[in-house]
């Protein structure tokens, strides 16, 4: 590659990179600004004081919201991993009548937009007494076709002979599952875990529907609350809240970016 072409490429990369991250970077910078600076339209804060962060934690129960989001995301992640890997195991290793039919049933779930079912789902959760509870926020999302297919692809790489041998040796299916299959699929499971956590942390519509008090709200709904209350004019404080919300997922994304890309591509091209 010629030097000229390299310089050109780096310039294109830098410009587009800056355009893409600018809104995020700007939010970080504003979170350190005092009210006057924001109104003047400064791009760089005069000092990096944490005053806005303290204020954000004081004015809304941000810590409770963050904790709720963490619990909900971890529960959904674990629930999805368990259910998806169990289902994927059955699709790969256990042959029985009607398996194909159930597989098509799983595929068909991907054609139903979740939003089209939200009214009866709300009624169901309400009648179960799950409004404002972790159960209502998490359990409806435990089953996931995409994750099942992703793991199924991975499980298929395990030789069938290994499974048959273990059956003859009298090793139970559950032991084969936990002892052989899960360790082999470790990377794919990690990918799925990152994806699940990201998606769960960022959920908006469902938590908005099923929580209506401060004790059970997730942090995304906390942002809406910050934006609609009188704090809204205090952009420094609002952006401090935004930073607290995006920091965990950004760190997770940067750590797992390569893995996520490989896993999602695998799922896409299945």
């Amino acid at each position, binding site marked *: 590659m010629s030097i000229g072409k390299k310089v050109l490429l780096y310039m294109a990369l830098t410009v587009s990179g800056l355009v893409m991250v600018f809104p995020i970077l700007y939010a970080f910078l504003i979170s350190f600004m005092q009210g006057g600076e924001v109104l003047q339209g400064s791009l760089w804060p005069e000092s990096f004081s944490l005053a806005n962060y303290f204020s954000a934690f004081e004015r809304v129960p941000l810590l409770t919201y963050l904790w709720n989001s963490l619990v909900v995301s971890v529960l959904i992640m674990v629930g999805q991993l368990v259910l998806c890997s169990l289902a994927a195991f059955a699709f790969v290793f256990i042959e029985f009548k009607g398996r194909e039919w159930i597989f098509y049933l799983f595929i068909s779930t991907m054609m139903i937009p979740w939003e089209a079912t939200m009214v009866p789902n709300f009624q169901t959760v309400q009648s179960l007494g799950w409004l404002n509870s972790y159960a209502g926020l998490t359990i409806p999302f435990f089953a996931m076709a995409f994750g099942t297919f992703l793991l199924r692809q991975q499980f298929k790489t395990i030789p069938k002979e290994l499974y048959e041998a273990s059956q003859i040796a009298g090793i139970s299916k559950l032991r084969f599952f936990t002892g052989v299959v899960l360790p082999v699929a470790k990377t794919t499971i990690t990918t799925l875990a990152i994806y699940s956590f990201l998606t769960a942390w960022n959920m908006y519509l469902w938590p908005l529907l099923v929580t209506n008090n401060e004790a059970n709200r997730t942090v995304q709904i906390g942002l809406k609350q910050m934006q609609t209350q009188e704090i809204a004019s205090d952009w420094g404080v609002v952006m401090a809240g935004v930073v607290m919300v995006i920091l965990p997922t*950004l760190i997770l994304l940067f750590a797992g970016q390569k893995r996520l890309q490989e896993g999602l591509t695998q799922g896409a091209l299945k």
Partner: protein
Amino acid sequence: MTVIRQEATSGSTGDWHLERKRAWSNWMTGMMFLLPSLILFGVFLFYPMVRTVYLSLFLTDSQGVPVVFVGWENFVNLFQSTSFQLSAKATALFVLYTVPAGIVLATALAILANQKLRGIGLFRTMFSATMGMSVAASSVIWMFLFNPSIGLFNRILAALNIPGVQWLLDPQYALLSVSVATIWMNTGFAFLILLGGLQNIDQSLYESARIAGVSESYKLRKITLPMLSPTLFFVTTVSLINAFQTFGQIDLLTRGGPMESTNVIVYSIYKDAFINYNVGSASAQAVLLFVAVLIVTVLQFKIGERKVHYQ
């Protein structure tokens, strides 16, 4: 009698018995592994979908309890209401604004980031960053950028001596503004998948092209884009479905306004069901949303199948 019974338990019939017993035990274990997923799909996806169709044929009270069977009336009312026509128009325009532009942008970034250069990892991280951003956080940031008095866009316009625009309050601009923010939010995910698709292309193709001495644009048109087409196709489908399901940025940025210009379908369902307590109408709209997504998915399967044949 004894003889017959002995015969029955030995030989091929015995195998058949054993076979049947094994099939039964396999079925039991298989179902044990699948049952948790099946139950949840049943309770939180299939049942509510059927229930939605059912509710769409009824007049409901404010609790969402069906009261009078009205057949197609909810649908007829919908198609005759200006509000729904506006919502359908907003949804179609939103899809039109966000999907093609988003895919072109993400593809360009993916091609740019697929170079073997020192430090390319940093740029890839920058391009994929929006995947870690929630809809709520992104919307709050864009709300600030769109702010008429202190937001970045009007400041740039002011610097150029152009009068400011009410980005989110002017019916002419609101949907366009939300679309720009949405394209930005969705780029990270599309970029990551397209980059993966690019990296899966057989490098020997480019090697042969280099030896043949063909131009860069020829390589892009004849190797990169055709080889990337399955991934592009997948990203298009996902983007289309996502666009139909948009809610968060509407709720935070415009609440469906001004003058219902951004009242896309899911927001409209939400408003009818949870603010106006008109569950019948909301269910009818949900059924239409389901049909729209179904058409996109079926098309994907059909066209995807054909592509495999031609390869």
